[in-house]
């Protein structure tokens, strides 16, 4: 009983932490701090996943996000204005619509959790979850796993192509343009 109480307490701690830090991401004056708040939110979600028995997923999420957000924080310090958050930062548009849609999606999705009758079939052996995932990844879902890997590789190549100073159609600094299609006239797309 005390064990499940501890799990519950930790869950609510992580839940409150992830929501509060997630909210702070868009309410801080410094983009660097926004990156760290997002990292905290991700870490708390990773904690909840570990509590749910998905240790591998939770730890991978934390590891991946820690690396990603640290890179992001460095980028923020290097390229973004006002990394120390000394001035107020308020760069929003369509603010009321955004708040309304955000609240509405929370209410709709949150009410779905109570309105829909989900089957109650808890994971029978959570301690073997990582081994089961490994068998799944290298067995039945091998194709999905490999496709995800190829998608990641192409995303990396795409990112390098997009950021390189020399674009596909010449020097990016010169404002290079895509060549016209064969037979197309000037001024047509």
């Amino acid at each position: 009983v005390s064990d499940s109480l501890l799990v519950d307490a930790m869950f609510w701690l992580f839940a409150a932490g992830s929501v509060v830090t997630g909210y702070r991401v868009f309410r801080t004056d410094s983009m660097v701090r926004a990156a760290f708040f997002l990292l905290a939110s991700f870490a708390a979600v990773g904690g909840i996943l570990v509590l749910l028995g998905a240790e591998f997923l939770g730890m991978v999420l934390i590891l991946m996000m820690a690396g990603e957000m640290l890179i992001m924080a460095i980028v923020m310090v290097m390229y973004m204005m006002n990394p120390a958050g000394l001035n107020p930062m308020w760069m929003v548009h369509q603010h009321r619509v955004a708040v309304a849609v955000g609240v509405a999606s929370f209410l709709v999705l949150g009410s779905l959790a109570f309105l829909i009758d989900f089957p109650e079939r808890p994971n029978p052996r959570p301690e073997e979850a990582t081994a089961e995932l490994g068998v799944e990844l290298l067995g039945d879902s091998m194709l999905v796993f490999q496709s995800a890997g190829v998608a990641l590789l192409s995303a990396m190549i795409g990112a390098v192509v997009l950021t390189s100073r020399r674009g596909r159609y010449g020097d990016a600094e010169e404002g290079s343009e895509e060549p016209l299609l064969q037979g197309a006239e000037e001024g047509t797309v």
Partner: protein
Amino acid sequence: MSLEAVLVVAAALFGIGVYGALSQQSFVMLMMGLEMMINASILALGAFWSLTAGGNPQGQMLAIVFMTVMAAEMALGFAKTHKRAGKALMEHQLVQLKINEMHALTEALRSYVMRVAWLHDRGQHSANAGLVMNYSTDVIQRVTRLNMEIHGAEGCAMHARVDKLVRDAMVWTHLAGDTVQRIKILKRLVKGSAAAAGANAD
């Protein structure tokens, strides 16, 4: 830790993410909203896997695919894109109007400078020579600011040359366009018109 509780937390994170993705002007912040939405989906998936699916490993598998999407989105999001809201920067009407105004101001200044040069060649001297300096200060400050506004559409990462131009333009407030000189020119103009009025009275 019931399924409903976890799903409500996921819904809250998703709502915050939706808010961020819709409201933020900076592309990097918008991306943070998107990531929060994907993260909420991963949490909901984890809950379904753990509490309703009887430990079927495909639930975790799906979460891994979601993480891949997140990583790919991040990589491409960091890469600089040259399109704004699906259009090239030039095709936005506001940008066109700004470039139009920059062009009109520059051409007007050019005409004014040519006219002063023409007057000078004819040996006619007037307050125009000083006024054109004031006016050129106004124009370069306005034009460099418009230029900065157009480049501002890239979020807050700004090309260093863009704000250098604005700072350079500001220097001219002291070199050619400051208030003291404007007052001097005004005095000359008033004196000139008074003299002209006196001449007419005689």
